[in-house]
């Protein structure tokens, strides 16, 4: 349980890190600390507080939060290695560690190379992967997951829900990558009005930035549609499954908030708090979709040795995790 709480803390810290990263971009502070890994020649952790001024406040805070998250993921990976019986979960910990290290290096490179778009976009996109990894770890170490959500009977194995949820997850991620591209190519206000586009339903003129911005708006419509289909499936067929119903309701709330924030980002000419909230809400839509998708697939995962699922009275079948579990127990 303690491991799960720690994984939750790590996942929540990743969300904070993404918000801080959003603030760096939204305030144009990415190059306010020109060196890396040092800060103006100081060792990062000894950079004087009185120098946290202007853009440095955002950039340096982002670096320190990133270091903290990196440390938390390091601890999490080793904790999983020591205590987690499932091999794939232990591996997930080290994948998350590798991802966050890569993420840190990308962050450093993008500063040293003056924010080249491909690196910055990769940095933004990998951040979402790190968030997904920490969220997945938090989910699969939770008591509910271990118990196969069996309080209300066996976990459903709804192929249609699994397919549509997976497609929605992919769509949300693509939409976030398009958003990151829009953000880092400075196309956020390429279409300056909302809901119209230059006063029309479709832009009456085009350039690459307008095309990227347009793609993000079309992507928002596609994501919303897919989410409605996915959550509709839950509402129609799995209303009695709280593990599916709760993330579905949350998704509807989040996507409504996200569209509102997207509109306000344009209408406020990219006010930096609104803009950054749009980034972190997008990430929240992604991981909530991920949670729903994983839970929809729960029946396809194996059992966890020593879990409380046995008291739920569900018919448990031995899953592929047992080999890993045995190895973990030996460790």
């Amino acid at each position, binding site marked *: 349980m303690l491991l799960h709480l720690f994984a939750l803390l790590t996942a929540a810290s990743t969300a904070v890190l993404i918000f801080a990263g959003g603030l760096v971009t939204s305030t144009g502070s*990415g190059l306010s*600390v020109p060196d890396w890994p040092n800060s103006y020649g100081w060792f990062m952790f000894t950079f004087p507080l009185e120098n946290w*001024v202007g*853009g440095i406040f955002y950039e340096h805070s982002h670096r320190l939060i990133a270091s903290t998250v990196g440390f938390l993921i390091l601890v999490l990976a080793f904790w999983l290695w020591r205590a987690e019986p499932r091999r794939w979960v232990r591996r997930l910990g080290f994948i998350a560690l590798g991802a966050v290290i890569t993420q840190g290096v990308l962050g450093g490179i993008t500063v040293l190379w*003056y924010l080249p778009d491909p690196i910055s976009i990769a940095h933004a996109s990998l951040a979402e992967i790190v968030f997904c990894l920490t969220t997945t770890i938090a989910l699969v170490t939770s008591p509910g997951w271990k118990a196969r959500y069996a309080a209300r009977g066996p976990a459903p194995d709804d192929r249609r829900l699994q397919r549509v949820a997976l497609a929605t997850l992919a769509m949300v991620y693509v939409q976030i990558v398009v958003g990151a591209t829009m953000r880092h190519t400075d196309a956020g206000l390429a279409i300056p009005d909302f809901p119209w586009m230059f006063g029309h339903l479709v832009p009456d003129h085009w350039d690459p930035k307008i095309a990227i911005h347009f793609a993000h708006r079309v992507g928002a419509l596609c994501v919303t549609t897919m989410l409605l289909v996915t959550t509709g499936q839950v509402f129609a067929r799995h209303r009695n499954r709280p593990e599916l119903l709760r993330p579905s309701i949350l998704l509807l709330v989040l996507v409504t908030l996200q569209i509102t924030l997207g509109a306000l980002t344009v209408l406020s000419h990219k006010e930096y708090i609104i803009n950054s909230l749009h980034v972190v809400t997008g990430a929240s839509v992604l991981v909530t979709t991920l949670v729903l998708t994983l839970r929809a697939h729960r029946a396809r995962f194996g059992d966890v040795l020593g879990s409380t699922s046995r008291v739920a009275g569900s018919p448990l079948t031995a899953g592929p995790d047992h080999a890993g579990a045995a190895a973990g127990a030996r460790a």
Partner: protein
Amino acid sequence: MRIGSSILALFVASVALAAAACGGGSDKSATSAPAAPVTNPVDPATAGSVAGKVTFMGTPPPPQPIKMSSDPRCNNPEAKTEAVMVAGDGSLQNVFVYVKDGLGNLKFPVPTTALVLDQKGCQYRPHVFGVQAGQPIEILNSDMTLHNIHAWPQTNQEFNMGQSLQGMKDTHVFTTPEIMVPFRCDVHKWMNSFVGVVAHPFFAVTGADGAFELKGLPPGTYTIEAWHEKFGTKTASVTIGAKESKDVPFTFSG
């Protein structure tokens, strides 16, 4: 036999000469002797000048106070934006005026004296300036706070450096002509500056009176360009004879 010996001697001599020539070239590149100083090709006896005034027609946006609360050490309550500075008579300040075309292949000596770009009161001083390609720019931090100096040219090498202490200096050289190279401080968003990098000494920046003068021009026909960070560019063609001075006014409108 004698002819054969002569041909052999000639061949050996040729090879030796070629080797010497190649070797000489290698030595030259190895020592990389500096190019001979280029003498100013302008004859002072015939040099003329182009002068003028840059004005703004219309109602200019007034300079806005700069909010510097994000860094208490900036302490410059009087600071105002410098992008559009128009005097009561319409004189437009901070316009970079230079000879864009007409100098042909003339080359001019590059000043070795550094031009100082100061960061003072969390503003760049000067806001607009010019240098010759190859002329050093000394970047100085006169403030009690730290700055990063981020130049983002299109042709020259981009750089971003930090100056964390008051009195710090760094020198940078732009090697290629470029109109204009922007500087900005990412710590203090309001700080920006522009440098015009040209291949010759015929440039000026208008002061509060909007006036400029390009002195020492050889007789010829020139394209003169005036650049302003908000209003874009204006060009004019002018022909000057020996010892002649021509007036070339520019007018921008908002």
